């Protein structure tokens, strides 16, 4: 596997042609990994026929199956959306098409993005290509595995509490969650609207930056998208060595020793380049998971109310309207989604809203404020991406509390609406592990530049070869 820019050069020589690349990607789709819910070979071939010259000319892209592509089923890995084919494409899909990218398939996820392992899918679990007994992370596990196993050059996921970054960490990839509003959400099936952001999973910072150049920017169809000017996110080689990176103490608690030492290796390498580090504190870190749960479940309970069997998707007729809705939803959703809808409904109820939803909203503001304060002292923050490497399939499915553990590292960023990127920090045994760089709002170029620098200087450069390369 090569980078997007390398492929663009090779395509000019015709070795390989975009069609050759697509064929080789299709060959690498391994059903036992279960990364895809729908493979869209025909759509990709048609895309190539258009021969559009753009930043993603001929690049096979995998799309998480909660982002609409017109005419292709969107399942959100849920039975409730059975048979639903969207009549419109997401804004990000239109932008990729305009830049010549082609869609190889729709990838597996935890139902509606609700999970950290891609096990809770109506279409079965996705497996980690480094160790098939392990989870790939989630909820964008399918998109991570598609890239890690070489069936796509790059992929899109969605990140509500870490759903792009945590699987990137478990699969040895670069995963970016942009600033809230940087990328249009139009056409992304909502889980928690105030936290959701479409993210990118790629092999390196530059590929991710190029994809961001393509998909970012204001969209009149998404009132929460930002008009802030864009940057050349793929151009990452210039970085000031005067930057200061903060290490938030709380993010180094409750993590595996090996994870700690991997992140410290990155720190050492950057220090050699003259970059300075400072220990900082984010005392609200312990409140991240409960706050995230209350807000995301509340919004989800409302966002998922539309799946009632009346207009599309699974329908089980009952005795009356409400019975039909009840039966359709009962059969349509898996237990974890039901659990979240129930809790979300409760925290918004008139008896509980002040104690739960409103309090969580207040703490969310404190968390945001704390990030703002710490960014007065440092330019970026560096943290582990996850407390541990990938865990075994089936290990946490009955334990929602443990399943949420990795959110402690990632969900604060969603609550604050700021950008963060996860990239490989090394291997722990057979499994990759990542570090995370967090930036101020709209500092995507900055955080990707730090990752680019690490790619150049890190002692383990090229460690992903065994899984990625032909």
């Amino acid at each position, binding site marked *: 596997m090569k980078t997007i820019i390398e492929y663009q050069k090779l395509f000019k020589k015709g070795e390989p042609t975009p069609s050759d690349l697509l064929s080789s990607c299709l060959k690498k789709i391994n059903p036992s990994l279960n990364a895809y819910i729908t493979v869209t070979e025909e759509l990709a071939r048609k895309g190539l026929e258009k021969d559009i010259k753009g930043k993603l000319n001929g690049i096979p892209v995998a799309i998480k199956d909660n982002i609409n592509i017109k005419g292709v089923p*969107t399942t959100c890995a849920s039975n409730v959306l059975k048979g639903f084919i969207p009549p419109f494409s997401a804004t990000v899909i239109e932008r990729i098409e305009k830049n010549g990218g082609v869609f190889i398939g729709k990838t597996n996820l935890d139902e509606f993005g609700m999970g950290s392992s891609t096990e809770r899918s109506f279409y079965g679990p996705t497996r980690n290509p480094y160790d098939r007994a392990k989870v790939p992370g989630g909820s964008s596990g399918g998109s991570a595995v598609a890239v890690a196993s070489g069936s796509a050059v790059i992929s899109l996921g969605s990140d509500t509490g870490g759903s792009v970054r945590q699987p990137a960490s478990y699969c040895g990839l670069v995963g970016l969650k942009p600033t809230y509003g940087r990328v249009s959400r139009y056409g992304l099936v909502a889980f928690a609207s105030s936290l959701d952001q479409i993210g990118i999973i790629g092999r390196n910072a530059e590929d991710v930056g190029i994809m961001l150049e393509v998909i970012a920017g204001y969209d009149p169809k998404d009132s929460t998208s930002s008009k802030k000017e864009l940057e050349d996110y793929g151009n990452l080689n210039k970085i000031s060595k005067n930057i200061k990176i903060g290490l938030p103490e709380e993010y180094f608690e409750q993590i595996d020793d090996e994870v700690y030492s991997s992140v410290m290796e990155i720190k050492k390498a950057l220090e050699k380049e003259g970059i300075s580090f400072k220990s900082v504190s984010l005392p609200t870190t312990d409140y991240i998971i409960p706050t995230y749960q209350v807000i995301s479940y509340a919004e989800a309970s409302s966002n998922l109310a539309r799946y009632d069997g009346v207009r599309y998707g699974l329908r089980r007729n009952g005795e009356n309207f409400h019975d039909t809705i009840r039966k359709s939803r009962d059969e349509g959703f898996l237990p974890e989604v039901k659990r979240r809808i129930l809790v979300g409904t409760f925290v918004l109820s008139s008896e509980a809203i002040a104690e739960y939803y409103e309090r969580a909203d207040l703490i969310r503001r404190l968390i945001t404020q704390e990030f703002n304060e710490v960014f007065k002292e440092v330019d970026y923050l560096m943290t582990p991406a996850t407390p541990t490497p990938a865990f075994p399939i089936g290990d946490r499915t009955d334990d929602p509390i443990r399943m949420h553990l990795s959110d402690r590292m990632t969900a604060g960023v969603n609550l604050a609406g700021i950008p963060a990127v996860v990239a490989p920090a090394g291997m722990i045994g057979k499994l990759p592990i990542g570090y995370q760089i967090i930036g101020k709002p709209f500092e995507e170029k900055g955080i990707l530049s730090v990752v680019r620098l690490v790619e150049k200087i890190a002692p383990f450069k090229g460690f992903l070869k065994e899984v990625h390369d032909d």
Partner: protein
Amino acid sequence: MTDYKPTIGIEVHSQLKTATKLFCGCPVSFGVDANTNVCSVCLGLPGVLPSLNKKAVELAIKAGLALNCEIHTKSIFARKNYFYPDLPKGYQITQYRFPIATSGEILVEGKKIRIKRVHLEEESAKSMHEKDCSLIDYNRSGVPLIEIVTEPDIDSPEMAVAYLKKLQKILQSTGISGAVMAKGEFRCEPNISVSKEKGKLGTRTEVKNLNSFRAVKNSLTSEIKRQIGILEKGGIVEQATIHYSEKTEKTRVARLKEEASDYRYFPEPDLPPLLIDENRIREIEKGLEELPEEKTERYIELGLLGEDAITISNSKKTSKLFEETLKILNEPAEISKWLVRDYRSLNEPDISAEHLAEMIEMVLKGKISRNAGAEVLAEMVKTKKTPEQIVRQRNLSQISDSSALEQVVREVFEENPEELARLKAGENKLIGFFVGEVMKKTSGKADPKEVSRIVSEYEKKY
């Protein structure tokens, strides 16, 4: 029975006159084929997001202004969550804690009705129940509405109807809403309670399903009876939703409060807070002013001559003075005469409505003559003194004391024996001559009508 006092508040849902829906570009229209004006957004398909219709926001601001509300430069959309097949997203986008406008009032038959709030929200789809199935038409889904809520300031079914008629007229004349009840563009839900004790409110019920003003009046009358009936028997009125049947003209309990849903309102995360520029509010306020043609029409209804009505409405300054004076002195035709004949020939100077009303009232009561009135008006412009001061200082008070006038008439008769003889011979037009002479003698202070009466009576005695 009679010592029970009803207390009524009313919620009105009115459809805004926009070309497109509140959150998508689908046309708003009435009477087209079912499910033809629909798109992914108003069908609530997975992945869609709302984009707010600016025109709807402007009309909501306009409504707030027309109802004398405070317009909030920041308001917030909220989701009202409940399951119903005609609600495609499982929630309605509305405004809850922070509506676009609050604290207004309008005058209805001299009584002030306070407006609690005006907020924007989207319409639901329309269900139709057939024999063996239910059908849904989503053409209506997402049509923009405003909800207008009063304080409980209405005290009778008649007043409720008067309020609704006035509100309907305001919404129609300002182009905010077609407000046609039969088209469902203007729907009212009154809430009502009765109580014997002054200042203490009873338990209220909410009346639904009212499709005409007649239904509003009859349902409230019936509901007042129903509630009093319960209380008289020593019962308790339960908080409930009431349905009114046009057929029986009676109200019945449809659903008790305990069965009501918990709507789990929370801020709509797909829409940022609605921020409105102060200048934009002022611009819309300007646009709310009545057009001259509309004013003319209204003035003619008040009893003004067509030409006068046009003259007054064509001048902003004169029409403003007219309206202000009319508030103090309910004599539209008189005020109009003074404005058209005298005020405008003085080049529309700045004068106060209070002083103008005071002067006209003096003339109408015969305290000063019309001529003296004109003099007072001219002096008011020059000196800014009150009419009363001017009349006193210039000794303009009219002589209407008949004995004093009789004396002057006698003098004039003696001075003009020839004319008197002709008058006596039946040449009645000479009455005018004598009246003129008397007016001259009294420097215009005499009441010409009175003088004319005396002249007619006295010529016989001489």
